[in-house]
């Protein structure tokens, strides 16, 4: 318990000190990461703990955002809901809408449940542009964040602390929720809802409650984004956002409480950083996602627990070479495939093809990549990345071999010590 508590305190302190270290643009990224992390954890309550995969969770996020904006416009930073308390409006809206939607959705289970949530979100998305008074058409609703409680909320630092406090409080509440009897029952919903029914619980009412709580915290996340951006647009109801939260949650790992937060933070940062560096960043995101789904089914958190368990079982010294080999292999594969994709993307782009066709006889012009020119017509451009890629594949095989050897040796050791132990006993 102690190392966990220490880790928790350390993490919180670091988050509190972040504005002193980061530039303004990174601070903005951190705010978005925090909001995404809260949304993912709220979603995980329903999905990972309750076992109900919802495909339309963006609806509750969006409803929270719009409710907060209307409150912002109405209150002007004073009265019942001063600026720091605005996400409460999002919470209430998320709770209310979640209860209604959840009542319908939880009547079914499994894939049908997922389809109902998808249908609800799509219906809302289709109707929203027509309901101009509520959702403001395609320019959305916008308001202005007013100073309150002696702070102007005009710069990113204050906004960051506001978001941080809300996110930490919400995550804390979500965590406490899992320790309440209702929270334990949620896990029961996932494991065996049939049996719960026979134990006398009203499964439908329980599901609606869990759905509503999950929607409430999603609404808080939406409200935080509304406060941060001072506007919301009906595109927030698009299936894209619902898909992104599912992606983030599963990439992080559904079995650990903070897994989705990790996944969401990493993927948000990935999108933020890479989207300006490369035009093909969506491809990288898709590939990353597929790879995680295929090779790390328990998510990135699973990676951390693999490391810890293996360290305990095989010892740090024997584990290190395997880990380094894996890291090396991944690095080689990443570098070569990124290079190839970037080269191909530039080569097939309209601009380049137009430039090349200007003079059909001359060899294809150079493509500038990583500040060096590369000629697509020459083998020396293609051979190095392809070679590196195959080296990476070979490194993967090596790593696998070493890992298997480790497992085998451990078995041998175990059986040896057993027989030795028997020998001593007898």
């Amino acid at each position, binding site marked *: 318990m102690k190392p*966990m508590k220490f*880790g*928790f305190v*350390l*993490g919180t302190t*670091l988050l509190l000190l972040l504005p002193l*270290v*980061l*530039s*303004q*643009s*990174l601070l*903005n*990224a951190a705010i*978005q*990461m925090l909001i995404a992390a809260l949304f993912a954890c709220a979603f995980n309550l329903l999905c990972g703990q309750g076992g109900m995969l919802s495909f339309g969770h963006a609806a509750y996020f969006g409803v929270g955002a719009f409710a907060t904006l209307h409150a912002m416009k109405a209150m002007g930073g004073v009265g019942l809901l001063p600026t720091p308390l605005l996400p409460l409006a999002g919470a209430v809206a998320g709770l209310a809408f979640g209860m209604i939607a959840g009542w319908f959705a939880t009547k079914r289970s499994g894939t049908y449940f997922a389809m109902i949530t998808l249908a609800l979100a799509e219906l809302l998305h*289709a109707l929203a*542009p027509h309901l101009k008074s509520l959702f403001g*058409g*395609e*320019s*959305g609703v*916008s308001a*202005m*964040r007013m100073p309150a409680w002696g702070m*102007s909320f*005009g*710069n*990113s630092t204050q906004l960051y602390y506001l978001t941080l406090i809300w996110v930490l409080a919400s995550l804390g509440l979500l965590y406490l929720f899992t320790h309440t009897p209702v929270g334990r029952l949620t896990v029961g919903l996932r494991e065996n809802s049939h049996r719960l029914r026979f134990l006398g619980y009203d499964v439908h009412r329980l599901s609606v409650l869990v759905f509503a709580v999950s929607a409430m915290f999603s609404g808080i996340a939406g409200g935080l*984004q509304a406060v941060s*951006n*001072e*506007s919301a*647009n009906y*595109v*927030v109801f698009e299936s894209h956002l619902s898909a992104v939260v599912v992606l983030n949650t599963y990439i992080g790992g559904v079995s650990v409480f*903070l897994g989705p937060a*990790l996944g969401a*933070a*990493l993927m948000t*940062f990935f*999108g*933020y950083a890479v*989207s*300006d560096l490369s*035009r*093909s*960043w969506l491809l990288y995101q898709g590939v990353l996602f597929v790879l995680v789904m295929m090779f790390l089914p328990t998510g990135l*958190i699973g990676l*951390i*627990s693999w490391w*810890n368990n293996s360290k305990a079982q095989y010892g740090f010294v024997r584990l290190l070479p395997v880990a380094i080999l894996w890291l090396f292999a991944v690095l080689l594969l990443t570098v070569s495939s990124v290079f190839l994709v970037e080269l191909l993307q530039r080569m097939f782009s*309209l*601009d*380049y093809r*137009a*430039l*090349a*066709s*200007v003079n059909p006889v001359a060899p294809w012009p150079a493509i500038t990549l990583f500040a060096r020119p590369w000629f697509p017509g020459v083998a020396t451009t293609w051979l190095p990345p392809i070679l590196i890629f195959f080296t990476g594949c070979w490194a993967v095989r090596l790593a696998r071999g070493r890992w298997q050897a480790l497992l085998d040796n451990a078995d041998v050791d175990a059986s040896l010590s057993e027989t030795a132990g028997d020998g001593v006993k007898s």
Partner: protein
Amino acid sequence: MSASKFIRPVVVACTALLLVSVTLAAPLKVAVIEALSGPQASTGLSYRNATRYAIDRLNTAGGWNGEKIDLIEYDNQGGPTGAADKLKAAIADGAQFIVSGSSSAVGGQLTDDIRKYNIRNPGKEVVLLNLGAEANELTGEKCHFHNFRFSSNAQIRIKALVGAMKKDGVIGTRVYSINQNYSWGQDTENAIVEYASVGGYKVVEKTLHDVNKIQDFSPYVSKIVAANVDTVITGNWSNDLLLLMKATKASGLKARFGTTFLDQPGNLANAGDAATGHYIAHLFNAEAGGKEGEQFAEDYKAKTGRYPAFIEGQAVQGMLMFGEALKSVKAQSNNLNVNAWALALENTKFKTPMGELRMRAADHQALVPVVVSVVSNDAKYKVDGTALGFKPIMVLTGEQAATPVPAACKMQRPTQTP
């Protein structure tokens, strides 16, 4: 095991990388925030390319204050939320001018955010250069001093279009209006009705349909056929226009089309000969620019490999006008005072191959020349690898094309003159 432990090293490492790029220097920074990936990337990339070409030209001519102008690109990831994030990043990176144009939704978000930023940070204002978002409200109720639109709006386009079509004698007396059900489409529909007397026609029926959701336009074409019209006027773009035209061609409907976005790449290739005889009101046509137009088109082709298409011509002219206004602004303690630039822009008369470009001070809507062209085989510049191109039939000057200042625009001007 706390996840925060994991985030920290990643974030700190990346900080180190990114802090390097933050400089305190004097070079003027212009940020283009566009959809560079995702479904809307095609138009976003066009704006990016046009801006890059223009800034390169300004830099070759000397830049500003003896230094090159820095152009930084940001991907708004397809929507207003991404745009809001990247705006904060751009401002943090020191950009004083934000360029955008492909989406009215994004334009609306950016203009609001910039207005609020300017209120909170007097003395460090940021300006929005809107190169193409044409919703009326951007120079209407959302207008503010640090927002400039270099392209047209629904009214300007429709007024020019119906005027030219009437002059050519093709508009007839019965017109069908079909548009997308959002701000741009509704603005266009209102404009079509408003200019009915100018065009000498009657709007027989008006339809608004869902944006980019409809695959099968044949029900709409059936309605058009039933209405028995001479002309169909539409502000549709992208798939909505293409599918509408394909459905029209398939049904053998003989009506003429008056459009605003027919020059989007891919439209003529896909519509083929069915597009011949249709009209478009747009802001740049190299053939209409005479010698200067030809020079510009050839230079653009030399630098990018293609002739300027779609919004690229107008976007480049807008950015060149931005550069023209820069020339008369002197640096104040090695920095640019954007208010001084804005006042200079209001007094700038910029000569483009289409005519003179001026910025109206009341709502910061440019008085931009409009060209009305018809799709024909005799056009000088062929499009999309087909034998068709846009042959200009009428050019209106900025003043001729202009529409009144919207009553909703209540612009507050800065009190101190720099």
